[in-house]
């Protein structure tokens, strides 16, 4: 019954477990065009929905005339807020404790807001009917600037909140004010500034951008009027949360609601929220008793679903004359659009923005974030980052550069001087985060050596000395720390549900396995990497481990995939579920080998009797026994479920360096070199990590160099097509060099920290740092993104550097 003898190393290799660069299991179906996305789903009798949207940014609805639309053959229904009112579904709660209009209730608050829906036999008829719905508006003054929105006489955006002085996060000071959130110790920070030898301050704007996943949002809702149950296929990063919300809104018991996230074509935070389109499709299906499909187009996606960032930030640093930072103060005005629909843990209206002290040992710090309503689309999601961490990292990394410039210090030197030292971990920051582990100096040295930093600085000095140099050379450096893996349920919840995650593993009698998860992959490769964790934990080849996610009727409850939480939270759940199985397997193996459990050693895929290599049972042997003849008194079967509530966040970090050459005649910026060192703790699949880093760097490049959502004075969004909105392809994307160090997380069962978002968070300030560095000898301390050729050319002209 025993296979030919193989060395432990050979057997371990055959498992393709943790540390193996196993090819992605998902790709076979994707490269053959056999993925199964929401828009691929077709159901018998399915109808199609399209949405009538507001052409103006702010106005009153005077009249809606549906007649012409209803007269079109093939149109089944046209619904407005009036039709949803009896169901109390014309407004819905948001994840941030506000309410949002499902369909505009008498007033439109932003351009492209949902006003009415049309249900028709096919997509084309629906689109024609949308144009036939006649709506008269009375235009109202538009407020787009959050500072202007807070002026005493500013137009009232949210009339529905009239007289409401208490919001979900404390007192509202003004009719367009949502919340003010403070973190840190203001008195201590102020004291540090009073005593400071040097202070610097800088205003910066982090533009409104959009995650713009390749697949737009959509759903197919199917209510069965006979069985009374509702199945909805949906583009969601958090299907279980959607099920809970749908049940709460519709009154259908959660047991009769099935939410399925099939293949998802990228999320990046855009698919966390619950959008009016989903609600309307579900209502339409319930009303009509037929399946209803809604899939938005690209313009609708960029215009109306969740944006990211839009933070107007003021940073200040206090320091000693030799560059030791003693205090940090941050003030942010956050443009949240017309409804507060940020996706953050309930208690954190500005997410984890208080990671803003960065990788530095700053004794006193204070941050204040003010959320404001404007006539723009709602959102404020984490675009490939943990909640608002991108904004925080951008601010602190820019400020450290500004301080270095003021003190005439090198930006690597000032960082080294202020790092939290290796021996200080676990480290409690001034904002109260407990940093788990880190070794910043080793990583920084590795990067500076790899790129010959001194040589680069010498080259830059030579170029600056040459008045005829056709380019300005800039070197950007960022040494960032992220906070991911939300989160401990004592402080983190979404709509009251703790932010744990879950895993269920079943070992089949013949030794293969299935694992079901509360998360959902959107390109991260969960089906590949999760299997590798189980392979290593249980000695089963990853090839025979099936991973399923996204179907709420089969998967255990979980909070989903965003904020780099899959590996830190669900990855831990896998390890601990596997360890429960392992413990039971050991008992069975001891029974089979007729020895005491303590006389067994575990080796790769088998339990061995201590001192006798010939006596062993593999996990496959144990599985058969578990179903065939378990020890007396033991429950048959070999499976386990684990819900993992993380004791802390994880704190991955990275050191990024970028060299740019700016054409003095055209303003075009060429990224000559980008070196990214990431430390995400234990590495599960190095190939997937590298792919994630390439993707994150490319999206970071997109944000820093071109992405923006410009509005004109009337609130028209002027960048909602891919003709205007920058989505880099292979043509524009620079070459990436990657590197790593490994500093495991001490509190995570695998030591893993999560990685997919670090490259996005870390790269954006690196590009800005490089572009500003090119101008720094001209006294420039900051340039706002995006660093496109036109804006950079204007800066060249302004500072007399243009050719």
């Amino acid at each position: 019954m025993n296979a030919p003898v193989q060395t432990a190393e050979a057997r371990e290799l055959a498992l393709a477990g943790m540390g193996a660069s196993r090819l992605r299991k998902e790709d076979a179906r994707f490269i053959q065009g056999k993925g199964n996305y929401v828009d691929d789903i077709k159901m018998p009798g399915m109808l199609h929905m399209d949405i009538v949207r507001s052409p103006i940014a702010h106005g009153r609805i005077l009249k809606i005339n549906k007649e012409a639309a209803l007269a079109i053959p093939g149109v089944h229904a046209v619904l407005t807020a009036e039709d949803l009112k009896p169901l109390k579904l014309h407004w819905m709660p948001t994840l941030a404790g506000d309410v949002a209009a499902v369909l505009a209730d008498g007033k439109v608050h932003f351009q492209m807001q949902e006003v009415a829906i049309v249900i028709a036999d096919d997509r084309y008829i629906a689109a024609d009917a949308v144009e036939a719905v006649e709506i008269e508006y009375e235009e109202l003054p538009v407020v787009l600037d959050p500072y202007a929105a807070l002026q005493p006489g500013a137009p009232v955006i949210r009339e529905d909140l009239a007289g409401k002085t208490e919001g979900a996060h404390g007192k509202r000071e003004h009719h367009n004010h949502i919340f003010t959130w403070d973190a840190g110790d203001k008195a201590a920070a102020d004291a540090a500034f009073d005593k400071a030898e040097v202070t610097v301050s800088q205003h910066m704007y982090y533009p409104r951008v959009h995650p713009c996943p390749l697949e737009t949002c959509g759903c197919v809702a199917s209510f069965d009027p006979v069985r009374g149950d509702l199945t909805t296929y949906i583009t969601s990063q958090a299907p279980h949360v959607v099920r809970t919300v749908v049940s709460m809104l519709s009154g259908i018991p959660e047991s009769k609601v099935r939410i399925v996230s099939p293949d998802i074509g990228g999320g990046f935070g855009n698919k966390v929220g619950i959008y009016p389109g989903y609600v309307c499709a579900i209502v339409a299906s319930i009303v009509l008793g037929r399946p209803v499909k809604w899939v938005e187009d690209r313009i609708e996606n960029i215009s109306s679903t969740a944006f990211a960032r839009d933070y107007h930030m003021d940073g200040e640093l206090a320091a000693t004359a030799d560059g030791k930072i003693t205090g940090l103060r941050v003030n942010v005005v956050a443009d949240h659009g017309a409804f507060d629909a940020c996706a953050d843990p309930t208690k954190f209206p500005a997410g984890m923005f208080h990671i803003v002290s960065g990788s530095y040992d700053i004794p006193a710090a204070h941050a204040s974030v003010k959320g404001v309503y404007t006539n723009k689309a709602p959102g404020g999601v984490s675009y490939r980052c943990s909640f608002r961490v991108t904004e925080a990292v951008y601010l602190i990394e820019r400020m450290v550069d500004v301080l270095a410039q003021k003190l005439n210090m090198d930006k690597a030197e000032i960082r080294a001087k202020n790092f939290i030292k290796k021996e200080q971990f676990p480290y409690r920051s001034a904002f109260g985060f407990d940093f788990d582990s880190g070794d910043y100096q080793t990583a920084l040295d590795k990067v500076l050596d790899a790129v010959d930093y001194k040589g680069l600085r010498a080259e830059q000095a030579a170029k600056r000395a040459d008045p005829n140099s056709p380019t300005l050379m800039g070197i950007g450096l960022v040494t960032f720390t992220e906070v991911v893996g939300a989160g401990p349920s004592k402080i983190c919840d979404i709509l009251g549900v703790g932010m744990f995650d879950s895993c269920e593993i079943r070992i089949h009698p013949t030794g293969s396995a299935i694992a079901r998860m509360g998360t959902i992959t959107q390109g991260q490769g969960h089906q590949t990497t999760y299997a590798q964790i189980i392979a290593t934990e249980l000695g089963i080849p990853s090839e025979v481990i099936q991973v399923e996610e996204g179907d709420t009727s089969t998967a255990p409850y979980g909070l989903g995939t965003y904020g780099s939480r899959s590996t830190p939270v669900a990855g831990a759940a896998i390890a601990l579920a596997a360890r429960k199985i392992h413990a039971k397997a050991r008992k069975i193996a001891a029974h089979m080998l007729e020895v005491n459990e303590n006389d067994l050693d575990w080796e790769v895929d088998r339990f061995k009797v201590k001192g006798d290599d010939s006596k062993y049972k593999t996990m496959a042997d144990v599985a058969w026994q578990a179903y065939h003849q378990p020890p007396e008194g033991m429950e048959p079967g070999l499976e386990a479920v684990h819900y993992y509530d993380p004791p802390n966040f994880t704190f991955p970090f990275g050191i990024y360096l970028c060299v740019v050459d700016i054409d003095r005649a055209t303003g075009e910026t060429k990224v000559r070199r980008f070196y990214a060192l990431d430390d995400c703790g234990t590495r599960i699949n190095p190939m997937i990590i590298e792919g994630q880093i390439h993707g994150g760097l490319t999206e970071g490049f997109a944000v820093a160099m071109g992405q923006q959502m410009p509005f004109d004075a009337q609130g028209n969004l002027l960048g909602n097509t891919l003709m205007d909105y920058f989505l880099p392809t292979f043509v524009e994307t620079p070459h990436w060099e990657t590197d790593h160090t490994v500093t495991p997380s001490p509190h995570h069962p695998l030591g893993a920290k999560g990685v997919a978002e670090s490259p996005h968070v870390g790269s954006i300030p690196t590009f800005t740092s490089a572009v500003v560095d090119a101008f720094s000898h001209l006294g420039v301390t900051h340039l706002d993104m995006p660093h496109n050729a036109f804006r950079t050319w204007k800066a060249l002209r302004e500072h007399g550097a243009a050719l």
Partner: protein
Amino acid sequence: MEVKLDKQYPLDVDAARAWALLTDLKAVAGCMPGAEITEQISETSYKGGVKVKVGPAVAQFGGTVDVIEAVADERKMVLRGKGADKGGSSASMDLTAIITADPTNPAHCVLNGQAAVIVNGKFAQFGGRMMVQVSDMLLAQFVENFRQTALTLPVLAGSAQAGAAASVSSAASTSSTAAAPAPAIAPVVAREINGLAIFWALLKSWVGSLFGKRA
């Protein structure tokens, strides 16, 4: 999206006839490519529409035009137009048009137009970057139609001799002296904007601008 226009168009029409045409809103609308006045609501208020056709896409704006001010002494007309189409766009325009006589040639005048055009919705989003050029083209077509129509009007007493003007106008074959009085002014123009012609003109001006020529 707001576009401000300030244009002067020299016309080979005397000021009196140009003003006569300008005060006939129905006829003026007829000079605007694709535009039409369908109903008079009050002394100074009209209902109308504009149909714009670019390739296969047709946008039909319906709305109102109000005469805010008409000062005969200054030959000055102030109009406000507002409209929306069913495809999710809306537009408004404040227009001040003044006819000034050409001091050197009494048979000629200058049409001065100042307009602030605000466009919302799809037109602003897609057409934003072309707004100025498209507006220029539309106005150029309008002015040509205006000129041709004005030339068909009878020369009014006190105005300069029309002979020189008539000779340059290709539309002058319909005898100007025998033309009907003002209310019956018939625009001698196509009813729709010629999208292809606009596109061609835009392309020409764009190519021209690449080589430093001012369009």
